């Protein structure tokens, strides 16, 4: 579609990725990773890849975030890094 929408979503994708890597709380990193995944799915819908976007919405923004939260629940939640 038009390039303004592309540019806005791409900027948000980079910010969500940076936030997920720099936050010191691991639960927040998992949820920001879910947001990054969902913004990627929007990106692919705008580009016309509807099958890939459907798969990423169900797999990345759904099940993958749940796996992260379950693993953080069973290990520690704070990190110094």
């Amino acid at each position, binding site marked *: 579609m038009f390039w303004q929408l592309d540019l806005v979503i791409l900027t948000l994708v980079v910010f969500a990725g*940076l936030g997920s890597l720099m936050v010191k709380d691991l639960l927040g990193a998992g949820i920001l990773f879910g947001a990054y995944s969902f913004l990627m799915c929007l990106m692919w819908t705008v580009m016309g890849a509807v099958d890939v976007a459907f798969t990423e919405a169900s797999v990345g923004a759904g099940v993958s975030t749940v796996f992260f939260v379950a693993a953080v629940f069973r290990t520690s939640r704070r990190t110094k890094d």
Partner: protein
Amino acid sequence: MEDIVQTVVAKYNYWIYITLMMMGLYAMIAKNNLIKKIVGMNIFQTAIILFYVSIGVKKGATIPIIKALHGHHEAINPAEYMNPLPHVLMLTAIVVGVATLGVALAFAIRVYNRYNTLEEDEILSQIRTKTEEI
């Protein structure tokens, strides 16, 4: 100068995917926490998928589902549909990515059970003191 500006503007999706790939690569090498390394691996994977999908884009084309034609034998013009081949390869890549994520998180839980921490430098110092004792 005009040439360089033209090149930068016409291919802006490539610069974004290079940025995301380098973010993922830096997180995998330089971060200390194991869960942050796993997040970096997934950012790297989705950046590769973005690159492949953006190769198959055609200007002014529609999604690759053939419209229902009432007389079935009209010729289909392939220039007005998007390229379906990168989408097929990336379907496989996404699902393999989530399987790898499950295995990596199982490894992280196992490491935590053994060493009681998830930071890489503390794990390495624990291993070194154990080998010095022996």
